[in-house]
Protein backbone atom coordinates (compact mmCIF):
# COMPACT_ATOMS: atom_id res chain seq x y z
CA UNK A 1 0.00 0.00 0.00
CA UNK A 2 2.61 2.45 1.15
CA UNK A 3 4.84 1.32 -1.70
CA UNK A 4 2.18 2.10 -4.29
CA UNK A 5 1.57 5.51 -2.79
CA UNK A 6 5.28 6.28 -2.82
CA UNK A 7 5.57 5.15 -6.42
CA UNK A 8 2.60 7.35 -7.36
CA UNK A 9 4.08 10.41 -5.68
CA UNK A 10 7.43 9.69 -7.22
CA UNK A 11 5.95 9.49 -10.69
CA UNK A 12 4.07 12.77 -10.24
CA UNK A 13 7.25 14.42 -9.00
CA UNK A 14 9.24 12.95 -11.84
CA UNK A 15 6.78 14.21 -14.44
CA UNK A 16 6.67 17.65 -12.87
CA UNK A 17 10.43 17.95 -12.85
CA UNK A 18 10.56 16.65 -16.41
CA UNK A 19 7.95 19.20 -17.49
CA UNK A 20 9.73 22.11 -15.84
CA UNK A 21 13.02 20.95 -17.31
CA UNK A 22 11.48 20.73 -20.78
CA UNK A 23 9.97 24.20 -20.40
CA UNK A 24 13.36 25.58 -19.43
CA UNK A 25 14.92 23.78 -22.35
CA UNK A 26 12.35 25.27 -24.74
CA UNK A 27 12.80 28.76 -23.29
CA UNK A 28 16.55 28.53 -23.68
CA UNK A 29 16.13 27.39 -27.27
CA UNK A 30 13.72 30.28 -27.93
CA UNK A 31 16.26 32.79 -26.59
CA UNK A 32 18.96 31.13 -28.67
CA UNK A 33 16.85 31.58 -31.79
CA UNK A 34 16.35 35.27 -30.98
CA UNK A 35 20.05 35.66 -30.31
CA UNK A 36 20.97 34.11 -33.64
CA UNK A 37 18.41 35.98 -35.70
CA UNK A 38 21.01 38.40 -37.05
CA UNK A 39 21.63 36.27 -40.12
CA UNK A 40 17.92 36.24 -40.96
CA UNK A 41 17.83 40.02 -41.21
CA UNK A 42 21.21 40.47 -42.86
CA UNK A 43 20.20 37.97 -45.52
CA UNK A 44 16.50 38.63 -45.75
CA UNK A 45 16.27 36.40 -48.82
CA UNK A 46 16.34 33.41 -46.47
CA UNK A 47 13.23 34.70 -44.69
CA UNK A 48 11.46 35.58 -47.95
CA UNK A 49 11.90 32.04 -49.19
CA UNK A 50 10.29 30.70 -46.00
CA UNK A 51 7.56 33.36 -46.17
CA UNK A 52 6.48 31.72 -49.39
CA UNK A 53 6.28 28.24 -47.85
CA UNK A 54 4.82 29.30 -44.52
CA UNK A 55 2.65 32.25 -45.52
CA UNK A 56 1.74 32.18 -49.20
CA UNK A 57 1.00 28.46 -49.25
CA UNK A 58 -1.30 28.87 -46.21
CA UNK A 59 -3.39 31.45 -48.08
CA UNK A 60 -5.80 29.06 -49.70
CA UNK A 61 -6.96 27.43 -46.45
CA UNK A 62 -7.16 30.82 -44.71
CA UNK A 63 -9.16 32.46 -47.51
CA UNK A 64 -11.65 29.61 -47.89
CA UNK A 65 -12.11 29.08 -44.15
CA UNK A 66 -12.51 32.81 -43.55
CA UNK A 67 -15.19 33.01 -46.19
CA UNK A 68 -17.20 30.12 -44.72
CA UNK A 69 -16.83 31.25 -41.12
CA UNK A 70 -18.11 34.71 -42.14
CA UNK A 71 -21.02 33.18 -44.03
CA UNK A 72 -22.05 31.07 -41.04
CA UNK A 73 -21.70 34.06 -38.72
CA UNK A 74 -23.92 36.11 -41.03
CA UNK A 75 -26.55 33.40 -41.21
CA UNK A 76 -26.65 32.69 -37.48
CA UNK A 77 -26.43 36.38 -36.55
CA UNK A 78 -29.27 37.27 -38.88
CA UNK A 79 -31.52 34.51 -37.57
CA UNK A 80 -31.06 35.65 -33.99
CA UNK A 81 -31.07 39.40 -34.56
CA UNK A 82 -34.16 39.47 -36.71
CA UNK A 83 -36.19 38.14 -33.76
CA UNK A 84 -35.48 41.45 -32.10
CA UNK A 85 -35.89 43.41 -35.29
CA UNK A 86 -32.30 44.53 -35.32
CA UNK A 87 -31.01 42.58 -38.31
CA UNK A 88 -29.17 45.66 -39.55
CA UNK A 89 -26.70 45.10 -36.70
CA UNK A 90 -25.55 41.89 -38.32
CA UNK A 91 -22.60 43.69 -39.94
CA UNK A 92 -21.36 44.80 -36.53
CA UNK A 93 -21.78 41.31 -35.12
CA UNK A 94 -19.85 39.68 -37.95
CA UNK A 95 -17.06 42.24 -37.91
CA UNK A 96 -16.58 42.34 -34.14
CA UNK A 97 -16.61 38.55 -33.75
CA UNK A 98 -14.06 38.21 -36.51
CA UNK A 99 -11.71 41.04 -35.72
CA UNK A 100 -11.62 40.48 -31.96
CA UNK A 101 -11.74 36.70 -31.71
CA UNK A 102 -12.36 34.41 -34.62
CA UNK A 103 -9.94 36.04 -37.04
CA UNK A 104 -6.82 35.71 -34.89
CA UNK A 105 -7.85 32.47 -33.14
CA UNK A 106 -9.16 30.41 -36.05
CA UNK A 107 -6.45 31.68 -38.40
CA UNK A 108 -3.83 30.73 -35.80
CA UNK A 109 -5.35 27.26 -35.32
CA UNK A 110 -5.34 26.71 -39.07
CA UNK A 111 -1.84 28.13 -39.30
CA UNK A 112 -0.65 25.72 -36.60
CA UNK A 113 -2.00 22.71 -38.42
CA UNK A 114 -0.95 23.84 -41.90
CA UNK A 115 2.38 25.64 -41.42
CA UNK A 116 3.40 24.70 -37.88
CA UNK A 117 3.25 20.99 -38.59
CA UNK A 118 5.15 21.49 -41.86
CA UNK A 119 7.92 23.43 -40.09
CA UNK A 120 8.26 20.75 -37.40
CA UNK A 121 8.29 17.91 -39.93
CA UNK A 122 10.84 19.64 -42.14
CA UNK A 123 13.27 20.51 -39.34
CA UNK A 124 12.75 17.09 -37.74
CA UNK A 125 13.50 15.29 -40.99
CA UNK A 126 16.54 17.47 -41.63
CA UNK A 127 17.76 16.38 -38.22
CA UNK A 128 16.92 12.71 -38.79
CA UNK A 129 18.78 12.67 -42.12
CA UNK A 130 21.80 14.37 -40.50
CA UNK A 131 21.42 17.52 -42.60
CA UNK A 132 21.61 19.69 -39.50
CA UNK A 133 24.70 17.84 -38.26
CA UNK A 134 26.26 18.18 -41.71
CA UNK A 135 25.59 21.90 -41.65
CA UNK A 136 27.20 22.18 -38.23
CA UNK A 137 30.25 20.31 -39.50
CA UNK A 138 30.48 22.83 -42.35
CA UNK A 139 30.78 25.53 -39.70
CA UNK A 140 27.31 26.89 -40.48
CA UNK A 141 25.07 27.23 -37.45
CA UNK A 142 21.80 25.38 -38.16
CA UNK A 143 19.89 27.52 -35.66
CA UNK A 144 20.87 30.69 -37.51
CA UNK A 145 20.56 29.25 -41.02
CA UNK A 146 17.55 26.92 -40.76
CA UNK A 147 15.57 27.65 -37.60
CA UNK A 148 15.62 31.46 -37.29
CA UNK A 149 14.41 32.24 -40.87
CA UNK A 150 11.47 29.86 -40.43
CA UNK A 151 10.65 31.38 -37.08
CA UNK A 152 10.60 34.93 -38.41
CA UNK A 153 8.67 33.93 -41.51
CA UNK A 154 5.97 32.48 -39.24
CA UNK A 155 5.93 35.53 -36.98
CA UNK A 156 5.61 37.88 -39.96
CA UNK A 157 2.98 35.81 -41.79
CA UNK A 158 0.57 35.26 -38.92
CA UNK A 159 -0.87 38.82 -38.53
CA UNK A 160 -1.35 39.09 -42.29
CA UNK A 161 -3.11 35.75 -42.44
CA UNK A 162 -5.37 36.72 -39.53
CA UNK A 163 -6.19 40.02 -41.25
CA UNK A 164 -6.97 38.26 -44.51
CA UNK A 165 -9.14 35.78 -42.61
CA UNK A 166 -11.14 38.62 -41.06
CA UNK A 167 -11.54 40.45 -44.36
CA UNK A 168 -12.75 37.31 -46.08
CA UNK A 169 -15.11 36.64 -43.16
CA UNK A 170 -16.67 40.10 -43.43
CA UNK A 171 -17.03 39.55 -47.16
CA UNK A 172 -18.70 36.17 -46.50
CA UNK A 173 -21.09 37.77 -44.01
CA UNK A 174 -21.90 40.47 -46.54
CA UNK A 175 -22.50 37.87 -49.23
CA UNK A 176 -25.02 35.93 -47.15
CA UNK A 177 -26.88 38.71 -45.39
CA UNK A 178 -26.89 41.48 -47.97
CA UNK A 179 -26.74 39.67 -51.28
CA UNK A 180 -28.82 36.60 -50.49
CA UNK A 181 -31.08 37.53 -47.55
CA UNK A 182 -31.49 41.17 -48.50
CA UNK A 183 -30.32 43.14 -45.47
CA UNK A 184 -29.78 46.78 -46.41
CA UNK A 185 -26.20 47.27 -47.60
CA UNK A 186 -26.03 50.83 -46.28
CA UNK A 187 -26.93 49.89 -42.71
CA UNK A 188 -24.71 46.78 -42.87
CA UNK A 189 -21.62 48.88 -43.60
CA UNK A 190 -22.45 52.02 -41.66
CA UNK A 191 -23.27 50.16 -38.43
CA UNK A 192 -20.06 48.24 -38.81
CA UNK A 193 -18.12 51.42 -39.40
CA UNK A 194 -19.52 53.22 -36.37
CA UNK A 195 -19.18 50.27 -33.97
CA UNK A 196 -15.80 48.84 -34.83
CA UNK A 197 -13.05 50.87 -33.21
CA UNK A 198 -9.62 50.89 -34.77
CA UNK A 199 -7.64 50.90 -31.56
CA UNK A 200 -9.84 48.74 -29.35
CA UNK A 201 -10.89 46.15 -31.89
CA UNK A 202 -8.57 46.05 -34.88
CA UNK A 203 -5.33 46.88 -33.12
CA UNK A 204 -6.04 44.44 -30.28
CA UNK A 205 -6.90 41.73 -32.79
CA UNK A 206 -3.63 42.45 -34.55
CA UNK A 207 -1.70 42.22 -31.26
CA UNK A 208 -3.39 38.90 -30.53
CA UNK A 209 -2.36 37.48 -33.87
CA UNK A 210 1.24 38.59 -33.27
CA UNK A 211 1.28 36.70 -29.95
CA UNK A 212 -0.20 33.63 -31.62
CA UNK A 213 2.35 33.82 -34.43
CA UNK A 214 5.25 33.83 -31.97
CA UNK A 215 3.71 31.01 -29.90
CA UNK A 216 2.92 28.72 -32.84
CA UNK A 217 6.21 29.11 -34.67
CA UNK A 218 8.30 28.94 -31.49
CA UNK A 219 6.59 25.65 -30.59
CA UNK A 220 6.94 24.36 -34.16
CA UNK A 221 10.66 25.06 -34.49
CA UNK A 222 11.40 23.77 -31.01
CA UNK A 223 9.51 20.51 -31.51
CA UNK A 224 11.26 19.98 -34.84
CA UNK A 225 14.72 20.71 -33.49
CA UNK A 226 14.11 18.66 -30.36
CA UNK A 227 12.47 15.66 -32.06
CA UNK A 228 14.17 12.25 -31.78
CA UNK A 229 15.85 11.57 -35.13
CA UNK A 230 13.57 8.70 -36.14
CA UNK A 231 10.37 8.37 -38.18
CA UNK A 232 8.39 7.86 -34.98
CA UNK A 233 10.09 10.80 -33.33
CA UNK A 234 9.25 13.18 -36.17
CA UNK A 235 5.63 12.09 -36.37
CA UNK A 236 5.27 12.45 -32.61
CA UNK A 237 6.81 15.91 -32.72
CA UNK A 238 4.47 17.00 -35.52
CA UNK A 239 1.45 15.88 -33.52
CA UNK A 240 2.76 17.64 -30.42
CA UNK A 241 3.20 20.86 -32.39
CA UNK A 242 -0.45 20.91 -33.43
CA UNK A 243 -1.76 19.91 -29.99
CA UNK A 244 0.50 22.16 -27.92
CA UNK A 245 0.12 25.20 -30.13
CA UNK A 246 -3.67 24.83 -30.31
CA UNK A 247 -3.82 24.74 -26.51
CA UNK A 248 -1.38 27.64 -26.30
CA UNK A 249 -3.49 29.71 -28.71
CA UNK A 250 -6.70 29.15 -26.75
CA UNK A 251 -5.03 29.74 -23.39
CA UNK A 252 -3.27 32.87 -24.60
CA UNK A 253 -6.50 34.10 -26.16
CA UNK A 254 -8.25 33.95 -22.82
CA UNK A 255 -5.47 35.85 -21.08
CA UNK A 256 -5.19 38.49 -23.81
CA UNK A 257 -8.96 38.94 -24.00
CA UNK A 258 -9.11 39.44 -20.23
CA UNK A 259 -6.52 42.20 -20.51
CA UNK A 260 -7.86 43.84 -23.66
CA UNK A 261 -11.62 43.79 -23.56
CA UNK A 262 -12.61 43.94 -19.90
CA UNK A 263 -14.93 46.78 -19.01
CA UNK A 264 -15.38 48.02 -22.57
Amino acid at each position, binding site marked *: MFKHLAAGIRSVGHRTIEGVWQLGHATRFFLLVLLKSGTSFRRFGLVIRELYYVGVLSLIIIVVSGLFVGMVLGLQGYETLQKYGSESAVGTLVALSLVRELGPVVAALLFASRAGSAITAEIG*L*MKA*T*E*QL*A*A*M*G*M*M*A*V*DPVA*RVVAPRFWAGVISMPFLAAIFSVMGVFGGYLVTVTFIGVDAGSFWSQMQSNVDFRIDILNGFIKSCFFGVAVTAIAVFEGYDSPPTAEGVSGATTRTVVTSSLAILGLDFILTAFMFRGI
Partner: protein
Amino acid sequence: MTSETLVEISDLNFSYDARPILKGINMTMKRGQVIAIMGGSGSGKTTLLRLIGGEVVPSSGYVKVSGQVVHQLDRDALFEIRRKMGMLFQFGALFTDLSVFDNVAFQMREHTDLSESMIRDLVLMKLHAVGLRGAHHLMPAELSGGMARRVALARSIALDPMLIMYDEPFTGLDPISLGVIGSLIRRMTDTLGMTSVIVTHDVQESLKIVDYVYFVADGVIAAHGTPAEVRDSVAPFVHQFVHGEVDGPVPFHYPAQSYRRDLNLENALV
Protein backbone atom coordinates in the same frame (compact mmCIF):
# COMPACT_ATOMS: atom_id res chain seq x y z
CA MET B 1 54.09 15.79 -32.13
CA THR B 2 55.71 16.29 -35.51
CA SER B 3 54.40 18.44 -38.34
CA GLU B 4 53.81 15.17 -40.13
CA THR B 5 51.00 14.38 -37.73
CA LEU B 6 47.61 15.96 -38.42
CA VAL B 7 45.44 14.27 -35.83
CA GLU B 8 46.65 13.10 -32.46
CA ILE B 9 44.35 11.30 -30.08
CA SER B 10 45.62 10.72 -26.58
CA ASP B 11 44.08 8.58 -23.83
CA LEU B 12 40.61 9.47 -25.02
CA ASN B 13 37.63 8.45 -22.90
CA PHE B 14 34.02 9.12 -23.71
CA SER B 15 30.87 8.08 -21.90
CA TYR B 16 27.28 8.44 -22.94
CA ASP B 17 24.96 8.67 -19.93
CA ALA B 18 27.55 6.98 -17.69
CA ARG B 19 27.89 4.18 -20.25
CA PRO B 20 31.51 4.13 -21.38
CA ILE B 21 31.80 4.16 -25.19
CA LEU B 22 35.52 4.79 -25.66
CA LYS B 23 38.11 3.70 -23.11
CA GLY B 24 41.60 5.10 -23.46
CA ILE B 25 42.06 5.49 -27.23
CA ASN B 26 45.44 6.54 -28.63
CA MET B 27 45.93 7.22 -32.33
CA THR B 28 48.08 9.29 -34.62
CA MET B 29 47.12 10.14 -38.16
CA LYS B 30 49.77 11.37 -40.55
CA ARG B 31 49.19 13.93 -43.26
CA GLY B 32 48.42 12.60 -46.70
CA GLN B 33 47.33 9.19 -45.48
CA VAL B 34 44.06 7.32 -45.72
CA ILE B 35 43.33 5.81 -42.32
CA ALA B 36 40.54 3.32 -41.64
CA ILE B 37 38.86 2.88 -38.29
CA MET B 38 37.12 -0.47 -38.27
CA GLY B 39 34.98 -2.27 -35.79
CA GLY B 40 31.60 -3.86 -35.37
CA SER B 41 28.38 -1.91 -35.19
CA GLY B 42 28.10 0.05 -31.97
CA SER B 43 31.80 -0.10 -31.17
CA GLY B 44 32.13 3.67 -30.93
CA LYS B 45 33.67 4.39 -34.34
CA THR B 46 31.25 7.13 -35.32
CA THR B 47 31.60 8.67 -31.86
CA LEU B 48 35.30 8.91 -32.55
CA LEU B 49 34.61 10.99 -35.69
CA ARG B 50 32.25 13.22 -33.75
CA LEU B 51 35.00 13.78 -31.19
CA ILE B 52 37.48 14.74 -33.90
CA GLY B 53 34.93 17.17 -35.36
CA GLY B 54 34.29 18.66 -31.92
CA GLU B 55 30.59 17.76 -31.95
CA VAL B 56 30.91 16.08 -28.57
CA VAL B 57 33.32 16.62 -25.68
CA PRO B 58 35.44 13.77 -24.26
CA SER B 59 35.19 12.75 -20.59
CA SER B 60 38.98 12.78 -20.43
CA GLY B 61 41.96 12.82 -22.79
CA TYR B 62 42.07 14.97 -25.91
CA VAL B 63 41.94 15.12 -29.68
CA LYS B 64 44.46 17.44 -31.31
CA VAL B 65 43.88 18.50 -34.90
CA SER B 66 46.71 20.42 -36.49
CA GLY B 67 48.17 21.09 -33.05
CA GLN B 68 44.96 22.42 -31.46
CA VAL B 69 43.00 20.59 -28.76
CA VAL B 70 39.54 20.46 -30.33
CA HIS B 71 37.31 20.43 -27.25
CA GLN B 72 39.10 23.41 -25.68
CA LEU B 73 38.41 25.71 -28.63
CA ASP B 74 35.74 28.38 -28.27
CA ARG B 75 32.88 28.41 -30.75
CA ASP B 76 34.54 30.72 -33.27
CA ALA B 77 37.81 28.82 -33.22
CA LEU B 78 35.93 25.53 -33.53
CA PHE B 79 34.02 26.81 -36.56
CA GLU B 80 37.30 28.10 -37.97
CA ILE B 81 38.90 24.67 -37.74
CA ARG B 82 35.76 22.96 -39.06
CA ARG B 83 36.09 24.98 -42.25
CA LYS B 84 39.27 23.01 -42.82
CA MET B 85 37.50 19.71 -42.22
CA GLY B 86 35.06 17.89 -44.44
CA MET B 87 32.68 15.21 -43.36
CA LEU B 88 30.88 12.68 -45.47
CA PHE B 89 27.83 11.38 -43.64
CA GLN B 90 26.59 7.83 -43.93
CA PHE B 91 23.80 8.56 -46.38
CA GLY B 92 25.26 11.77 -47.76
CA ALA B 93 23.07 14.14 -45.73
CA LEU B 94 22.55 16.33 -48.79
CA PHE B 95 20.28 19.32 -48.24
CA THR B 96 17.06 18.05 -49.78
CA ASP B 97 15.74 21.53 -50.56
CA LEU B 98 18.80 22.49 -52.63
CA SER B 99 19.90 21.22 -56.05
CA VAL B 100 23.13 19.30 -56.53
CA PHE B 101 24.80 22.51 -57.68
CA ASP B 102 23.58 24.52 -54.68
CA ASN B 103 24.60 21.74 -52.29
CA VAL B 104 28.19 21.90 -53.50
CA ALA B 105 28.09 25.70 -53.60
CA PHE B 106 26.65 25.89 -50.07
CA GLN B 107 29.89 26.35 -48.16
CA MET B 108 31.40 28.67 -50.76
CA ARG B 109 28.39 30.96 -50.47
CA GLU B 110 28.35 30.78 -46.68
CA HIS B 111 32.04 31.22 -46.02
CA THR B 112 33.59 33.09 -48.94
CA ASP B 113 33.00 36.29 -50.88
CA LEU B 114 33.60 34.65 -54.24
CA SER B 115 31.60 35.94 -57.19
CA GLU B 116 28.80 33.75 -58.56
CA SER B 117 30.73 33.11 -61.78
CA MET B 118 33.76 31.96 -59.79
CA ILE B 119 31.56 29.74 -57.62
CA ARG B 120 29.99 28.29 -60.76
CA ASP B 121 33.39 27.30 -62.15
CA LEU B 122 34.56 25.84 -58.83
CA VAL B 123 31.38 23.84 -58.32
CA LEU B 124 31.57 22.39 -61.81
CA MET B 125 35.21 21.46 -61.21
CA LYS B 126 34.33 19.69 -57.95
CA LEU B 127 31.44 17.89 -59.61
CA HIS B 128 33.67 16.96 -62.54
CA ALA B 129 36.11 15.36 -60.10
CA VAL B 130 33.38 12.99 -58.93
CA GLY B 131 32.03 12.51 -62.46
CA LEU B 132 28.71 14.26 -61.93
CA ARG B 133 29.15 17.58 -63.74
CA GLY B 134 26.20 16.65 -65.96
CA ALA B 135 23.94 16.13 -62.94
CA HIS B 136 24.37 19.59 -61.45
CA HIS B 137 20.75 20.59 -62.06
CA LEU B 138 19.19 17.54 -60.36
CA MET B 139 17.60 17.55 -56.93
CA PRO B 140 18.91 15.09 -54.28
CA ALA B 141 15.68 13.05 -54.49
CA GLU B 142 16.48 12.30 -58.15
CA LEU B 143 19.88 10.74 -57.37
CA SER B 144 20.72 7.10 -56.72
CA GLY B 145 22.43 6.20 -53.45
CA GLY B 146 25.87 6.07 -55.07
CA MET B 147 25.39 9.38 -56.88
CA ALA B 148 24.20 11.06 -53.68
CA ARG B 149 27.34 9.82 -51.95
CA ARG B 150 29.48 11.26 -54.75
CA VAL B 151 27.73 14.63 -54.58
CA ALA B 152 28.27 14.63 -50.82
CA LEU B 153 31.94 13.90 -51.49
CA ALA B 154 32.14 16.85 -53.89
CA ARG B 155 30.44 19.01 -51.27
CA SER B 156 32.85 17.97 -48.54
CA ILE B 157 35.87 18.95 -50.67
CA ALA B 158 34.28 22.27 -51.67
CA LEU B 159 36.67 24.37 -49.61
CA ASP B 160 39.72 22.10 -50.10
CA PRO B 161 39.87 20.80 -46.52
CA MET B 162 42.97 19.37 -44.89
CA LEU B 163 41.02 16.53 -43.31
CA ILE B 164 38.01 14.59 -44.51
CA MET B 165 36.10 12.15 -42.35
CA TYR B 166 33.89 9.50 -43.91
CA ASP B 167 31.19 7.84 -41.86
CA GLU B 168 30.49 4.44 -43.41
CA PRO B 169 31.02 5.60 -47.01
CA PHE B 170 30.48 2.11 -48.45
CA THR B 171 27.22 1.20 -46.76
CA GLY B 172 24.36 0.24 -49.05
CA LEU B 173 26.20 0.67 -52.37
CA ASP B 174 26.30 -1.67 -55.35
CA PRO B 175 29.75 -3.08 -56.26
CA ILE B 176 30.36 -0.50 -59.02
CA SER B 177 29.48 2.51 -56.87
CA LEU B 178 31.48 0.97 -54.05
CA GLY B 179 34.59 0.76 -56.22
CA VAL B 180 34.01 4.30 -57.52
CA ILE B 181 33.76 5.77 -54.02
CA GLY B 182 36.82 3.83 -52.87
CA SER B 183 38.99 4.98 -55.73
CA LEU B 184 37.71 8.56 -55.43
CA ILE B 185 38.71 8.67 -51.77
CA ARG B 186 42.21 7.44 -52.58
CA ARG B 187 42.66 9.68 -55.62
CA MET B 188 41.41 12.84 -53.95
CA THR B 189 43.52 12.27 -50.89
CA ASP B 190 46.60 12.01 -53.11
CA THR B 191 45.86 14.82 -55.57
CA LEU B 192 44.53 17.35 -53.06
CA GLY B 193 47.08 16.50 -50.36
CA MET B 194 44.39 15.85 -47.79
CA THR B 195 44.18 13.35 -44.97
CA SER B 196 41.26 10.93 -44.95
CA VAL B 197 39.76 9.06 -42.03
CA ILE B 198 37.29 6.34 -42.95
CA VAL B 199 35.02 4.73 -40.43
CA THR B 200 33.81 1.50 -41.93
CA HIS B 201 33.15 -2.16 -41.46
CA ASP B 202 33.70 -2.96 -45.12
CA VAL B 203 36.99 -4.79 -44.80
CA GLN B 204 37.76 -5.84 -48.37
CA GLU B 205 37.03 -2.51 -50.01
CA SER B 206 38.84 -0.42 -47.46
CA LEU B 207 41.95 -2.62 -47.22
CA LYS B 208 42.46 -1.92 -50.94
CA ILE B 209 42.78 1.83 -50.48
CA VAL B 210 44.01 2.63 -46.98
CA ASP B 211 47.49 3.17 -45.57
CA TYR B 212 46.78 2.25 -41.98
CA VAL B 213 44.03 0.48 -40.06
CA TYR B 214 42.82 0.73 -36.47
CA PHE B 215 40.42 -1.87 -35.09
CA VAL B 216 38.12 -0.64 -32.35
CA ALA B 217 36.24 -3.15 -30.24
CA ASP B 218 34.44 -2.52 -26.95
CA GLY B 219 35.83 1.00 -26.82
CA VAL B 220 39.52 0.08 -27.02
CA ILE B 221 41.90 -0.36 -29.92
CA ALA B 222 42.03 -4.10 -30.42
CA ALA B 223 44.70 -4.01 -33.12
CA HIS B 224 46.33 -1.70 -35.65
CA GLY B 225 48.68 -1.93 -38.58
CA THR B 226 49.13 -1.60 -42.33
CA PRO B 227 46.74 -3.52 -44.58
CA ALA B 228 49.38 -6.19 -45.21
CA GLU B 229 49.98 -6.67 -41.48
CA VAL B 230 46.25 -6.84 -40.86
CA ARG B 231 45.63 -9.45 -43.54
CA ASP B 232 48.34 -11.68 -42.10
CA SER B 233 47.44 -11.06 -38.49
CA VAL B 234 46.88 -14.10 -36.31
CA ALA B 235 45.27 -12.12 -33.51
CA PRO B 236 41.90 -13.84 -33.00
CA PHE B 237 39.77 -10.68 -33.18
CA VAL B 238 41.43 -9.33 -36.32
CA HIS B 239 41.25 -12.71 -37.96
CA GLN B 240 37.56 -13.06 -37.21
CA PHE B 241 36.81 -9.54 -38.43
CA VAL B 242 38.88 -9.61 -41.61
CA HIS B 243 37.57 -12.99 -42.63
CA GLY B 244 34.04 -12.40 -41.46
CA GLU B 245 33.79 -15.50 -39.29
CA VAL B 246 30.53 -16.07 -37.47
CA ASP B 247 31.91 -17.00 -34.07
CA GLY B 248 35.12 -16.06 -32.33
CA PRO B 249 36.20 -13.44 -29.79
CA VAL B 250 33.03 -11.60 -30.84
CA PRO B 251 30.49 -14.28 -29.96
CA PHE B 252 27.51 -15.16 -32.13
CA HIS B 253 25.20 -15.38 -29.12
CA TYR B 254 24.08 -12.43 -27.10
CA PRO B 255 24.92 -13.15 -23.44
CA ALA B 256 22.17 -15.30 -21.91
CA GLN B 257 21.64 -17.89 -19.25
CA SER B 258 22.21 -21.47 -20.25
CA TYR B 259 20.12 -22.77 -23.13
CA ARG B 260 19.00 -25.77 -21.11
CA ARG B 261 17.68 -23.60 -18.32
CA ASP B 262 15.86 -21.29 -20.77
CA LEU B 263 13.99 -24.25 -22.20
CA ASN B 264 13.24 -25.59 -18.70
CA LEU B 265 15.28 -28.73 -19.38
CA GLU B 266 17.45 -28.31 -16.30
CA ASN B 267 16.08 -31.40 -14.59
CA ALA B 268 15.15 -33.36 -17.66
CA LEU B 269 16.84 -36.60 -18.48
CA VAL B 270 19.17 -36.42 -21.43
